[in-house]
């Protein structure tokens, strides 16, 4: 699956107005979204240290080794476990949402909904590639989202070759317009705890408004994106691009949407020399 996206910034003061404009544009109330992100870093494959040195040709054998070499050097990517916090109950949804709208200063209104005891979290394994290179009208990248329904995800990922690094939380509002998702969000910091606890810990949800913001100015990021299952299909790619550019034009008075900076969206683990030991 490919994700086509444009990004923009919404300052704290503009946040309420932007939400209203998006609500008007998409003719829907914002959907409050809370996502817990756990970051996992791949371990360096042991084989990288044991690659047979070049030369010493061994015929057929050498070909296999060459292939393995390519595989081992294919790049390492961070993975994330993303936990979508499922709203407790659809009780009086309409009302809640209106409250959220009228309460649109920098602080958020999630506390209304998640004040209840335990919230359910839907976990999925998220892979996002580094956006494709070259000057593009919209950012394009390969994405994969695998739902994980049951089991010990952290232990699984540990055996799978990925170790837990840190966590943060994303809060914001989502709007949908045809195939496009508009997500106005900001990142909040979470205290760092051990991997096992990180999956279970939802204790911070009732007090989300008290969490420290990553961006001290209280600004929000807006992401307009379209997911295309067959992103290599030129026709679909063209259509997604056209749709996003039309949206950019329609919203240009409200917010400036541009392709993301490719390197700041890089998900690769920097290559370091592994021959230290």
């Amino acid at each position, binding site marked *: 699956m490919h994700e086509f996206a444009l990004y923009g910034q919404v300052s704290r003061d503009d946040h309420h107005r932007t939400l209203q404009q998006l609500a008007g544009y998409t003719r829907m109330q914002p959907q409050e979204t809370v996502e817990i992100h756990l970051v996992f870093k791949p371990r360096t494959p042991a084989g990288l240290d044991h690659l047979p040195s070049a030369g010493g040709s061994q015929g057929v054998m050498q070909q296999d080794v060459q292939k393995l070499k390519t595989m081992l*050097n294919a790049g390492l990517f961070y993975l994330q476990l993303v936990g979508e916090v499922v709203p407790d109950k659809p009780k009086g949804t309409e009302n809640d949402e209106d409250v959220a709208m009228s309460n649109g200063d920098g602080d958020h209104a999630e506390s209304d909904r998640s004040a209840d005891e335990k919230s359910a979290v839907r976990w999925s394994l998220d892979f996002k590639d580094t956006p494709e290179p070259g000057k593009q009208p919209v950012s394009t990248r390969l994405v994969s989202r695998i739902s994980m329904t049951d089991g010990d995800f952290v232990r699984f990922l540990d055996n799978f070759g990925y170790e837990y690094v840190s966590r943060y939380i994303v809060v914001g509002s989502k709007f949908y317009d045809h195939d496009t998702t508009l997500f106005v969000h900001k990142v909040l910091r979470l205290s760092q705890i051990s991997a096992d606890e990180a999956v279970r810990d939802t204790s911070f949800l009732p007090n989300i408004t008290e969490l420290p913001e990553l961006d001290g100015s209280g600004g929000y990021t807006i992401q307009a994106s379209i997911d295309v299952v067959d992103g290599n299909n030129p026709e679909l790619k063209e259509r997604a691009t056209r749709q996003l550019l039309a949206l950019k034009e329609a919203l240009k008075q409200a917010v400036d949407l541009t392709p993301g900076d490719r390197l700041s969206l890089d998900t690769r683990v920097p290559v370091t020399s592994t021959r230290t030991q």
Partner: protein
Amino acid sequence: MPSTGLFFLPIAPNQPSPSALLVSHISRSFPAETLPTFHLDHRLFVDTSSLLPNSDTSLRRYTSILTLCHSPGTTYVGTTPPKEKPPAAASDPPATSPTSTLITIPSAHADPFTQLIGTKLQSHWAHRQSLVVDNGTALALQHEEWIVRIGDVRTPTGRSGQQTASNLRGMIVEVSFNDTTSVRPGRKDSADQQDTQHSGVGKDDETLIRGFLDSLFDGTGVQMASSRALFRNTRSTNPEDKDRSGVADWDLASLYMDMLRTPR
């Protein structure tokens, strides 16, 4: 708690599978009730580093993506823990060798996950082998006290769908003994069940299952003596147990993964 025995009978190239013979023999000789078809899909990956010529293959790690008809809509992904040293003695029966850590994903996500591993995670994992059972038979005997599943294990045929003798790898037989007489309380269905110290099957149950299988196959000339066998306690597979169907059965999935990891 039911005990399950899993048998894998390798079939030499260009030999026919005895499965059809066995199924018709059992159906004719015993009052058996046919259950929905038996099918599975197993994709095996090994850690890429272990494929290097100078690596220690005894330390090889595996990841399996397994879809079983027993729990429709659910796909298991299991990965073995890293081994610190070469496996101790051969006295360890295979069933209790380092157990995989399992998670479940929706079956619809099995293909995207396979693709992801094959492309972006290839520095960690390399595809090794895929095996499928497409059109197996499941039979219930003695009021579902026993459930027998028989299927031909093949490497996938690709788009053409032609089943040729050349992609046949063996026959798998699952025998589940649903011991309804002894109720063992305190069974947990949470993920904690992966702590598998209770998964071992007693010698008695193992003998019972082997004996039952021998009696079923008696007169067919099929010898299961040369098959590999694994045993494990599993969750109830009784289809009448409605609220349980579709829920993950970690032990059964582990059993199949352990079995399908090796035949090549």
